[in-house]
């Protein structure tokens, strides 16, 4: 591939990522400003937009690609994801449970 072509592809990659990320940022900010959703729907929407945007950043900015990224990098990323779910989920579960048992004291 020629250098010019590669340059164009890399710049386009960043611009597409930026466009998607901007859109996924504007949506939760607009919904926050507009109001009117129930708390559950609001939380769900924010979470969804955040997760999708993290994936966009990983794909377009950090160039994570299931076929071309070295296997050990993907493994580390996956392991990190598992640890995050365990630690955040575990913390919320245990502390939430404790708070429920301590109710009224």
């Amino acid at each position, binding site marked *: 591939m020629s*250098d010019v072509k590669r340059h164009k592809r890399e*710049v386009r990659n960043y611009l597409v990522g930026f466009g998607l990320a901007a859109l996924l940022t504007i949506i939760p*900010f607009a919904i926050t400003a507009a109001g009117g959703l129930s708390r559950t729907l609001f939380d769900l929407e924010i979470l969804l*937009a955040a997760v999708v945007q993290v994936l966009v*950043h*990983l794909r377009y*900015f950090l160039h994570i690609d299931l076929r071309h990224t070295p296997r050990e990098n993907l493994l580390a990323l996956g392991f990190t994801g598992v*640890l995050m779910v365990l630690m*955040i989920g575990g913390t919320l579960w245990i502390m939430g449970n404790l708070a429920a048992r301590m109710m009224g004291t």
Partner: protein
Amino acid sequence: MSEVDTKAHDEAEEKAYGFWLFLMSDAILFSLLFATYAIMVTATDNGPARTEIFGYWRTSANTALLLSSSLTMGLASIAISEARKSAAFQWIFVTMILALAFLVLEIQEFAGLVAQGAGPDRSGFLSAYFTLVGTHGAHVTVGLIWMAVLCLHLAMAPIGPAVQSATERLTMFWHLVGIVWIGIYSMVYLPGLYQ
């Protein structure tokens, strides 16, 4: 590729992998700060709650600044990988301005909170908030210093494999800082601002 080139390439790849592992451990650190914040968010000790202290426009401005800086950092890294020096300077300069503006807004916000009696010592909620957002701000500061060092490197010598591989790591670092910010505005600011 000559043998020397291959060796430099392997080394750069090894360093990128090592740095990737560091970034993953950094991400785990942040996820624990997020968990702490989620637990502490109701522990306001009759002080200010999250619905009272955040500003919509400041949060929007900070988000816009940091997201734009991810783009300009990417453009800088492309310029450096192609050994185009003046374009590299341009984009790193823009990235540094954006990062600096972000830090100024954040320091203003922190100073304002402390002035109105909502400092980190006020409640568990505020301790967790300052720890999480402050740690992110410290990362932005480190990134800014790293960019300044990169500018010195660029000014002193022609762009070679060493600077290119360092830039690759700085770019990875900067994108992680951007990803953490997505978590911060989604989990801290917007839920606080939503009435």
